[in-house]
């Protein structure tokens, strides 16, 4: 499930910067980071691997987390992911 939301609207519990890392490192590190959060907490993920645009949504579906938004700023992608399923 994906919603459009901005960081300004959400309290981000943690930020993970995976700039320069190639798949599947961003997926691996994201999964470890989200595991440390409480249900409903939001992780901001920063990547530069174009593959992340398909890998991160797939990972979120697989783990039953909620992809809140995806923003592309040049070569960088910024994801907001909430732990667990949200409405």
């Amino acid at each position, binding site marked *: 499930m994906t919603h459009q939301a901005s960081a300004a609207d959400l309290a981000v519990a943690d930020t993970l910067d995976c700039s320069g890392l190639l798949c599947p490192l961003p997926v*691996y590190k994201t999964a470890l980071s989200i595991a440390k959060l409480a249900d409903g907490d939001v992780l901001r993920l920063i990547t530069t691997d174009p593959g992340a645009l398909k890998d991160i949504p797939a990972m979120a579906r697989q783990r039953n987390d909620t992809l809140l938004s995806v923003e592309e700023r040049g070569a960088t992608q910024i994801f907001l992911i909430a732990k667990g399923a949200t409405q």
Partner: protein
Amino acid sequence: MTTHLGTPSLTSDASLRRFGDIRELLPDVANPTPLVRLNHVATATVGDFYLKLEWLNPFGSIKDRAAAYLIDGLRERGQLVRRELVEASSGNTAIALAALAALGGTRLTVTIPDGVPEETKVLLRMLGAEVWETPDDLCPIDHPKDGAIALARSLAASEGGTRYAMPNQYENPDNVRAHYETTGPEIWRQTDGRVGTFIAGLGTCGTLTGVGRYLKQQDPAIRVVAVEPQPGHRLPGLKSFAEAKEPGILDRSVIDDVIRVDDEPAYAMTERLWREEALMAGPSTGAIVHAANELTGGGVSVGVSPDSGRTYASYFAERLGNQGLPHI
């Protein structure tokens, strides 16, 4: 060499089992791993069947050979200078790499796939390696069952490729060379050139390709048989190519037959090896021996026993249930 007192050290002598350091125990034609005949569990149709006990290598498995060649190759090409090692491994290669890396003062990160026993992960950490447990389906889109390999490659490519060197056992010809230069010649010499069939499991395929090439160069009539597990198997070290990518080093032209084995008969045969032959082998050995019993033709056959069952005690415990406990 001299001792710290200036007196001459004892020289190494494999015939006396006297060695200067643990690396000198690595096998070759002068110091081969043993061949032991199976006297109870091999069927008559397979002829004289011998297992090559690779768990008597210094770090506990057949992977000691490849690990030494992989690290030496990196070093010779200058690829280990100011670098750490990273590798994907179901355990045995990682253990051997970790031991050799520790000897050489090099750090090792290892990505471990699903299904590896807890004992193996602890051994790696004991040797000083950093262990990244990796779900097989980490990359469900591009690498449905090779998450550990994909992660190792990703680490190797990170930081501009300057931090890590990756031995890459699935693609590196040094893996094949290890078996072409040591395992193959050992088997040829240990069987007086009479080996008619060689059987090993499909994994990285270094053993099958290296030994297969060597033996067929000695005698093209030698039959090389590969053992493949079923998808979703629990036989660490083996690979089903129905779910995993074939390694780049596999040379299918040296393989004459492929026999597929389920987990249950592999584990059942492993139990028989322990109880009837007193061979404390790992489950991949059980798969190889079970497959060998389907062969006909007689003669002298050699199968690989890649590792011992000691690191699979937790798997065996599940299978044993209450067996061996007192009934009161």
